[in-house]
């Protein structure tokens, strides 16, 4: 929070982070349009967790909601970070991939169903390992196929952030919206510390972690499209503004020359801070 903060607005806001996955989808869809499909009453649970003595939840931690956004047909897939760290298992992964595949089918049939992904996940659910990884590959394939027809908008609200194979999914989206509380990275800081040692990264140093992979830093580097407050109304508004941009002319994940040059410029004999890297890369903002 800086001096320009509108305190009245801040106090009046409705925190997006404090909402659960279902409430987040309701907040994003047009009022009264929310309809959950393959919800808890379908009882499609993980077949693999009970074999390992873990209680399976009836929605496997993913909410798929149909409805409208600005009157246009939409599907919102939201990951519930409170269940198994938002991890992707067979069922939760299939729900997201399947929803995107149906949105693609709609678009191929002339129905412009748009998609929003609420990404709050540590990545693959290790108890379902290879089937989680396979589902994530199918999610990647579906995003790339769908975004040719209609924007796929990713939102990372916080506080878990978006990691593992799902961080690739975030990077494949047409547009990405983040809060300051969000983190976006491939390997979680705890895993890096475990694999590379505390001299590489101190995962308990929250200021350090956010300075490297937090929403504000990702914005400085131009790796996301919009930075928003933790405010459900503002995020819902930003999602609409973003869809109004239409299909992007270029994708960040196709900015091959830009990123090879940028990475080539970096002196890898030392560790840079987030601000140093942003300065080196010229605070370029959006690379699109």
């Amino acid at each position, binding site marked *: 929070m800086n001096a320009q903060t509108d305190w009245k607005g801040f106090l009046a806001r409705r925190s997006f982070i404090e909402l659960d996955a279902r409430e987040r989808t309701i907040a994003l869809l047009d009022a009264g349009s929310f309809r959950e499909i393959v919800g808890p009453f379908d009882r499609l649970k993980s077949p693999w967790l009970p074999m390992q003595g873990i209680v399976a939840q009836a929605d496997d931690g993913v909410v798929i909601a149909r409805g409208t956004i600005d009157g246009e047909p939409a599907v919102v897939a939201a990951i519930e970070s409170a269940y198994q760290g938002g991890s992707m298992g067979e069922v939760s992964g299939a729900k997201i991939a399947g929803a995107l595949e149906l949105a693609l089918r709609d678009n191929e049939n002339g129905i412009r169903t748009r998609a929003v992904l609420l990404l709050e996940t540590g990545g693959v659910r290790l108890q379902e390992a290879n089937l989680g990884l396979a589902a994530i590959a199918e999610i*990647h394939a579906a995003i790339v196929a769908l975004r040719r027809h209609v924007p796929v908008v990713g939102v990372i609200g916080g506080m878990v952030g978006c990691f593992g194979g799902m*961080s*690739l999914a975030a990077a494949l989206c047409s547009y990405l919206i983040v809060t300051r509380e969000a983190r976006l990275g*491939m390997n979680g800081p705890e895993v890096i510390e475990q694999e590379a040692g505390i001299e590489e990264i101190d995962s308990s140093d929250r200021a350090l972690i956010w300075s490297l992979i937090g929403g504000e830093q990702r914005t400085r580097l131009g790796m996301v499209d919009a930075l928003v407050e933790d405010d459900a109304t503002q995020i819902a508004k930003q999602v609409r503004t973003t869809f109004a941009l239409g299909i992007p002319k270029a994708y960040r994940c196709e900015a091959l020359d830009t990123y090879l040059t940028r990475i080539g410029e970096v002196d890898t004999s030392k560790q*840079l801070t987030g601000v140093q890297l942003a300065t080196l890369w010229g605070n370029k903002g959006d690379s699109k």
Partner: protein
Amino acid sequence: MSDALTIPTGPHASRGRVWLHALTEREEQGFGQSHSVLFADAPLGDIDARFIAVVPDPANRFPRARQGEVGLEQGWALANIVRQTIDAHRGGDERRRPIVAVVDVVGQAYGRREELMGIHLACAAAANAYAQARLAGHPVIALIVGHAMSGAFLAHGYQANRIVALDAPDVLIHAMGQAAAARITRRTVEQLAELGNRIPPMSYDIRNYAKLGLLDSLIEGVDADAPDAAAVQQVRKVLAGTLDSIRQDGVRDLSARYRSKEAQTTRAASIEVRKRLAEQW
């Protein structure tokens, strides 16, 4: 094809390098300054294909990406090499150049520099390029000759039309290295191995992976470290057959992975979820 294959040996040896060389019999090229992503164009069946491998690079300027990991440079290099293949396609020619990802990747690079500079974006660039190639009609095959680990496999191989693998020791597919997965799930490596035998998706073993229905074929009786001419011929034959099958069914998405026979039982939940989504859509 001569009987005496020149197998690269020494500290730079890797199955990726061995198989890239054996299958193409060409001098591999690196991309730009990178010595860790190699490619060569060589015949596959009736057409030239592009073969691509990620290999160890002990002198790489990124200290966490020296052992065959997919890091920042590797992700963007893969994207470029695949992109070149797509861009090189001339209009009028109906047949698109096939791409073979020779997969032996120990994982993504775990490091602070990597996170700061966006390894997620680099790996996404590679996955995106492979997916774009597949959607454009380039037949894409992943040939697993060693490790296919986690995010590295997502970047290099998992977007392929078909996945084939050698049935050999140390051919492993998983979401996380065994030691790290044991620590994170609070189990011992032995417990993890035991679980893998009971629960197919938990297994590291290629034969259990084959039960998931994600694999198109498992190539038996091949020495993955030092293939002889017959083994190389056998793998070429499988690749050529796979290429034919991709062309014949003409499908450009990944639906074959849950239409397979094995998937009907092991991935029954993936199929049921899609059925109910369609019913309630």
